[in-house]
């Protein structure tokens, strides 16, 4: 069926396309602006010359920032919590989700509710803070990992997904005498890869972005994350200037381009945002899948 468009429709099409072009631009431009500033001549940046395209391209800022005191450690902590948090998160959510599909689970209804209630009710910020303190989890790396393993939403995602797998597949293994763990490992895990990828990616992004837990529970610099040191750089200009002076190449004639506070702020921001920007387009379908299954009631 050939469609002929009326002039009104055509105008509407143009308006819609223009609106979404503008919307996309507003979403993307701040990232672009930060990145062109990190690779432009720092003096020109300071004079306000870099607005739409990079001038005097160099990558010195990135090399220098990685040498800032505390940066390498923070990167390590961020990566460590992202990898271990996502890995353990997938493991606990998937096994619990699997267990919750089993009718014979001991008092299943009660325990299912036990998990679901936590999605809608919490004791509040200060009681939580006190609990973490009393458990001596302050200044402990585990405070980044353990609380995130209690994730009822992920459990629901897995449970919903496993329920769609034909039970016959598992039953045949049961006939062969395979126990729960063996069935979970040999049959359920391989079949639920898409949902596990979804959970993993959500957990990883959550861990990478997490930042209030450092503010509240870590005052040892050895536990600082990239997000947290970025927060510090943004708010503590004097300390940042001092940190820059401590860098080995500071004021040496060999370095033609000196690190400036704004260069550090922008470059660290670029480094922190880069992993998300790079992986997102490839994993977008997993993110979308996550929200769609989540929309179906558990």
């Amino acid at each position, binding site marked *: 069926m050939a469609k002929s468009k009326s002039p009104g429709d055509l105008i509407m099409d143009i308006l819609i396309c223009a609106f979404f072009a503008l919307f996309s631009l507003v979403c993307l431009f701040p990232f672009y602006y930060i990145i062109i500033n990190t690779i432009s001549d720092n003096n020109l940046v300071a004079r306000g010359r870099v607005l739409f395209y990079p001038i005097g391209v160099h990558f010195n800022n990135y090399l220098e920032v990685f040498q800032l005191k505390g940066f390498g450690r923070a990167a390590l902590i961020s990566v460590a919590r992202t990898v271990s948090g996502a890995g353990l998160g997938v493991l606990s959510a998937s096994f619990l989700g699997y267990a919750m599909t*089993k009718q014979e689970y*001991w008092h299943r209804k009660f325990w299912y509710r036990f998990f679901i209630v*936590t999605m809608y009710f919490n004791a509040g910020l200060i*009681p939580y803070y006190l609990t973490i303190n009393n458990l001596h989890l302050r200044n402990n790396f585990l405070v980044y990992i353990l609380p995130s393993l209690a994730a009822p939403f992920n459990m629901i995602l897995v449970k919903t997904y496993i329920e769609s797998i034909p039970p016959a597949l598992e039953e045949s293994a049961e006939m062969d005498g395979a126990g729960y763990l063996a069935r979970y490992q040999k049959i359920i895990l391989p079949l639920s890869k898409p949902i596990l990828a979804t959970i993993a990616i959500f957990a990883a992004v959550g861990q990478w972005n997490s930042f209030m837990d450092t503010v509240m529970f870590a005052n040892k610099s050895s536990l600082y994350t990239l997000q947290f040191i970025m927060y510090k750089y943004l708010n503590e200009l004097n300390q940042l200037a001092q940190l820059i002076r401590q860098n080995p190449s500071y004021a040496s004639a060999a370095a033609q381009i000196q690190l400036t506070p704004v260069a550090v702020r922008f470059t660290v921001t670029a480094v922190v945002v880069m992993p998300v920007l790079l992986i997102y387009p490839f994993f977008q379908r997993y993110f979308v899948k996550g929200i769609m299954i989540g929309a179906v009631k558990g």
Partner: protein
Amino acid sequence: MRQAKSLRAKDGFRLFLLTTPVIALTFVFCYLPLAGWSYAFFDYKAGIKLFDNPFVGFKHFQSLFANPVIRADIARVMKNTIGMSLIGIGTSWLPMFVAIFLAEIGSGVYRKIVQTVTTIPYFISWILVYSLAYAMFSTEDGFVNKLLISLGLADTGANFLLDSSHMWLKMWLYSTWKGLGWSAIMYIASIAGIDHELYEAAAIDGATRMQRIWHVTVPSLLPAFFVLLLLAIANLINNGMDLYFVFQNAMNKEYIEVLDLYVYNKGIMSSSISFSTAVSAMKSIVSLTLLFVANFGSKLLRGESIF
């Protein structure tokens, strides 16, 4: 037969045992904090065992209403909390609106690109949003000021970031920038699920494009919209804290401090643990009540529970 049943029960118990680590973690991090409510009934000082502190009963709860200074504080904080929530609720139709018009784009490639680009902000942390806002709006390094100066429209930069004016609106803009594309995705998927015959039937009946949107698309999205609206109402005093925490400063504190942030500032920054525990507890109870009200509303209007 009975033997098989008891065997099954034994299996079920074994399965339960296998999941006890997660049960323990959930108990510790989600249920154990409830015991912390007891701090609200003492005058707790850090470093002293809870029960060695003086027991004060409901003093902290009463002070919320009786103490004029605290009452004024709470009134200001509640105004910010509910004010910003209401702006969010009032504009909660935006994602639906965006999704409807995005679906109108004929080119699949363009639609995909827009979808990808506009959902990226959702996946960066609030501290990154702050950093990007700094890059856009700060006095010396911000794009907007540099642009205005280079165009000769301003002599010196204005401090959009620290300035306390229009704080509610600014916070709404940041939240919308971060969340709009992502919130639209759910509606986009719902639109894809609408039966095409409905559109064809409408077209045969001579419906214009706007009529088709209004009479076919919108009604099929309303149930989802309604559920989200009720959840937003249930979260009236739960507007989170990361975003307000990162954007707060000495100048804008009066307009940005929402309930969660107030509790944090009082309890952790100024160590009034007992008082802020009382506020925390009150907040949890009120939120739970709101959730039940919203759920009751949903049952009444749609005959379906939201959770």
